[in-house]
């Protein structure tokens, strides 16, 4: 029985971060409102890692001796200790200069700003390792064995140069308008495409300040209409199947590796990326409009907002459409061609009032977002019900669950009538307890059944692991020294797949135990138990690009939930008492986090952001405390 131990060595990760900022603001003489600002930031980051793995021992009991138990000592881990040390060093500098001008001419207020910012980062890294330590007494590299000595080193540099500005105008704080712009340059792009221009405008109208409003409509204490449209750029794109940035994808570059020649590792070079000499910034076009106000004598505040964001020129490597005979997937450079839309609405209502001495407030907020892919890299010729275009990011293909082959008679009849119907998914015959899939499509990509289950019977579902609606309800009460706050939150629209490493190698969920076909219980709903994905209906796997292969809808879990996220009750002892002991404020409180959850599924934490549920569940926490102010 082995759970955790520190007998195997240690892994230390120490990081030092120094961040410095300097700012100088100069009021230009003779021109009131004109300022020149300079900003400097210098950050240094050092990461040192030391990982020391030692041999360790497990004692196993022979299973029989009890009074004098016989234990056999078995060595585990490396036969001799390994030591690995690494050092990473980063220096980032930022310099910024801004000219700004603010002035009021009567009821007209004008602001103007223009600036330039440049950033540079340099990093260097090296590591060293040794194995075959004769003793675990000294954990320093010089004491390691003299074979298989390892080391490596690398470095990078990055730079950005941004120009930006803003012009703003408002009249009596009633009509507000602003125009802003950015011209961003990044080292990620080839020389001819380094800069992107991103303008934006916003406007606002405080309707409640209008004379006709003030005189005639007392209902609104404040009413404002505002809207904006703006662009932003993004240059962060990763290499395919990787968490590394696709830097210098416009140059033909080679990486280093090794191969054994003459009994020793010899240096080799391998292509990094097939270069694309022209690609540039992704652009996000964000627009929104909102109405905000306060009514009922200041008791009710509200905000209603609608937004529409379109990301264009999304950088992606076309791994789904370039064949392997052309350029292998991992070598493909980014290209600008994606388009994704996000649209939605948000609302917020906050009510605060008092009844006698009791003050209370209630708030409710929510947002609903629809995400759709408009243009994406896909293999040509995908049937319309399988394309990811028109669906959210993260929506996967699934076979559709259609019940279970629960009796032998059913299985025999099926195998006789449709021999080999499921061979397209890897089942040469059907066995009792297998899952049924709906026959959706046929070989020519049409949405009509063809008597066979294969890749054409997968359907793109509309949900991903990101919820479409999220909201919260908060509630607070204060009475004399007592205060109570409650926060409820919930979300709907997210789905994840149930995936566990269960089988002869790992445990099963209680849920799996309760929901399975057995010889004694011919379930018509649940299939036979699977051993780590060894059946065609196992639920598939996610590849390194986050794409699900071979999934089916039986394993989809609906992640809708409502959770009492936070409830806190506190009491502040009257100042008259506490000031006697020199305390300005003494508050006692009890609070609970994640107190209860109503969720459609009881397996995973419904706030999980991982598409396969591998997310450390949040705990219910009850705190009792006191806060003291002197």
């Amino acid at each position, binding site marked *: 029985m082995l759970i955790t131990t520190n007998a195997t060595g240690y892994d230390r990760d120490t990081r030092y971060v120094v961040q410095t900022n300097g700012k100088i603001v100069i009021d230009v003489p003779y021109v009131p409102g004109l300022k020149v600002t300079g900003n400097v930031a210098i950050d240094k980051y050092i990461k040192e890692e030391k990982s020391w793995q030692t041999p360790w021992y497990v004692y196993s009991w022979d299973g029989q001796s009890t009074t004098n138990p016989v234990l056999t000592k078995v060595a585990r881990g490396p036969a001799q200790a390994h030591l690995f040390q690494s050092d990473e060093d980063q220096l980032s500098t930022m310099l910024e200069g801004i000219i700004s001008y603010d002035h009021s001419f009567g009821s007209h207020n004008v602001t103007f700003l223009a600036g330039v910012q440049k950033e540079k980062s340099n990093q260097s890294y090296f590591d060293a390792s040794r194995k075959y330590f004769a003793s675990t007494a000294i954990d320093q590299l010089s004491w390691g064995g003299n074979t298989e000595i390892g080391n490596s080193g690398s470095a990078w540099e990055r730079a950005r140069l941004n120009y930006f500005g803003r012009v703003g105008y408002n009249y009596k704080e009633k009509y507000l308008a602003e125009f802003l712009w950015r011209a961003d340059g990044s080292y990620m792009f080839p020389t001819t495409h380094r800069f992107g221009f991103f303008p934006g405008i916003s406007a606002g109208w405080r309707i409640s300040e209008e004379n006709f409003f003030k005189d005639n409509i007392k209902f609104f204490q404040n009413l404002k209409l505002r809207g904006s449209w703006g662009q932003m750029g993004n240059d962060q794109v990763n290499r395919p199947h990787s968490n590394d940035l696709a830097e210098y994808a416009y140059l033909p570059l*080679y990486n280093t590796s090794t191969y054994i020649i003459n009994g020793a590792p010899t240096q080799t070079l391998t292509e990094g990326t097939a270069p694309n000499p022209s690609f540039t910034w992704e652009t996000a076009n964000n627009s929104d409009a909102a109405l905000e106000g306060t009514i009922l004598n200041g008791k009710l505040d509200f905000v209603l907002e609608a937004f529409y964001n379109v990301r264009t020129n999304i950088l992606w490597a076309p791994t789904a459409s370039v064949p392997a005979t052309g350029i292998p997937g991992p070598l493909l*450079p980014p290209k600008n061609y994606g388009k994704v839309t996000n649209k939605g609405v948000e609302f917020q209502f906050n009510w605060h009032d008092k009844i006698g001495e009791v003050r209370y407030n209630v708030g409710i907020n929510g947002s609903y977002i629809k995400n759709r892919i408009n243009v994406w890299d896909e293999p040509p010729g995908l049937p319309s019900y399988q394309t990811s275009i028109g669906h959210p990011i993260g929506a996967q293909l699934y076979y559709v669950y259609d019940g279970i082959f629960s009796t032998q008679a059913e299985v025999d009849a099926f195998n006789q009538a449709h021999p080999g119907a499921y061979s397209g998914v890897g089942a040469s015959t059907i066995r009792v307890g297998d899952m049924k899939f709906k026959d959706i499509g046929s070989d020519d990509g049409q949405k009509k059944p063809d008597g066979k289950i294969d890749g054409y019977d997968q359907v793109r579902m509309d949900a991903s692991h990101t919820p479409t609606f999220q909201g919260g309800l908060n509630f607070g009460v204060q009475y004399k020294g007592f205060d109570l706050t409650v926060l409820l939150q919930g979300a709907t629209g997210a789905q994840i797949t149930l995936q566990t490493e269960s089988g002869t190698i790992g445990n099963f969920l209680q849920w799996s135990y309760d929901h399975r076909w057995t010889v004694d219980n011919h379930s018509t709903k649940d299939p036979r138990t699977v051993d780590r994905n060894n059946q065609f209906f196992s639920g598939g796997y996610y590849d390194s690009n986050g794409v699900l292969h071979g999934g089916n809808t039986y394993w989809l879990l609906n992640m809708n939930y409502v959770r009492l996220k936070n409830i806190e009750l506190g009491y502040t002892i009257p100042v008259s008492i506490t000031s006697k002991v020199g305390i300005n404020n003494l508050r006692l409180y009890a609070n609970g986090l994640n107190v209860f959850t109503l969720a459609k599924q009881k397996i995973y934490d419904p706030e999980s952001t991982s598409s396969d549920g591998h997310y450390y569940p949040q705990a219910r926490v009850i705190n009792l405390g006191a806060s003291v102010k002197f």
Partner: protein
Amino acid sequence: MKTYLRNISAIVIVSGVLLASCKKDFLSTKPLNQASADATWADPNLSTAFVTELYNGLSTGLLDQMNNDCLTDNALFNFGKQDIMEGNVSPDHLSGLQDRYEWNAMYARIRSANISLEQLGKSSLDSALVNRLKGEAYFMRAYFYNQLLRFYGGVPLVKSSYSATATDFTIARSSYEDCVNFILSDLDQAAGLLSNKTMDKGRATTDAAKALKIRVLTYAASALHDPANLKTISTVGSYAHPELLGYTTSDHDARWLQVQTAAKAFLDMGKYGYMLNLSAPAADGFTNYQNSYLSRNGGEAELIFARYFSNAKDEWGAWYGRNNCTNGYHGWTSSEPTQNLVDDYEALDGTTGTAHDFSWSNPADAAAPYANRDPRFYASILYDGAPWKPRTADGAGIDPYNEIQMGTYQTGSAASPQPYFGLDTRNGPIENWNGTRTGYAIRKFMDPNPAIQDQNTRSEVPSPQIRYTEVVFNYIEACLELGDNADAITWLNKIRFRCGLPAVTETGGAALVNRYRRERNKEMLFEEQRFFDARRWMIAPTTLGNKVKIIKITGTLKPGATVPIYRYNTTNYNYTYTVQEIDPGVENRAWADKAYFPPISRDEMNKNNKLIQNPGY
């Protein structure tokens, strides 16, 4: 005034900073960790490094966790059924494809070979080096195309590298014949450019090019690629493009003559071969065979082209020992020999020195199935009672004799026996989820050095990509096809004498051909031969389609025997051997004719509309 000066100077400084930041090449940072293509091809060492990377396309060589023979009647993979063995592959269900011949992996390497040849073609480096590197690149390009050809049939011939900005990546498959000719021309180039050059161990040589050419010619001359035979395969009969799978005209004798001539020339060089000059069965065939597959003690003379492993680099192929040894040694028993294979080893008669085919209906054979067998059996396979390396500390307490335990036995006294499950079984006490399902484990290519504890030590046994014995077999096959039985028998006997077997008794006809095929299978076991041999000889339905047979061994204590710690011993135990078919849930083998030519993935078909799919899909 002072404030004024201070303010002005501050403005000047800040403006200076702003202006200084407008340097145009501020954003032209450099890739500090990568070599540029131009720098590489102008430097002899870096150019060599780029070409050397091609050899990494060999991947683990033959020493993969799932041995290629798991896709044949020789072995079973422990971790998941192989759909191709159930006749169940389809374009979106490709089964466990290995990166030594898989479409995407091979074309990635072919691209590197094309880039090498393009850059070397305009290189101004020393011409001796350039020619040598070109020779290596031509060889590896031919090697990779042959991996694709013998698996898929005719494939698109990409002869130059694409740019990422190309607009049209579509390309059609070339005919089988065009592919063969392209590969042969690359090999001829390679042989010429590499002739009279001494190459480092691990690199291609002129002899490797000649030996690979013999392999390609042998496959091309084989029955599968003759159009008359192709038509007899049910899925190919009405296929519209048989030229993708074989020749369009029959020319049996001329093609086999090409093989015979090339192989004879290679044999006449007299440069390779280990112990293939005996005139009678060797006394220690076991050691000879072991030396030839470990490439040691003279066995290195077999190697024509090899993929080496070194303890200086941690690679998957070096973990072959841990991946394949039994769970009783904390191994994974990944590739498991089948009873179908074991039954094919001949039984030797100790007194007369003759050999006969083993049979379960022969009582003498069935009583002691592991006694007096072909020495290659003992060297290739771990079986119940086989002596092996010292156990790990926890196993040593249970088995101090270091003998493989594949059965269910009894311990204690015969009067009140306790059931005891063998250490190397799926019911044993050590990691039994990794236990063998067939009753056997691989021994071939495992380093028998007792100091190497396979569970946590890598081995340095090289992977013989092409070895001399294969050239000999190809020569024998050509002789048989052309009716030169005498020559064939002479060489077949040399191979048998090396491993201690007597001369063949067959003199010709189908019997001799069958003997040759069985000989080739056992001699070149686990060397990526059977998968292709069974197909090109068109015997796949009666071999690869057979259900997996396993053995169940029980040992019951004889009356009066008392055994506290189990050890194989016929004095104390009655052993029963039951051969049965494996549970169909593990792998339900069946042959489907479409498996002669596995499919191209649906993804690739969608990306390239000029591709024609193989028949049956």
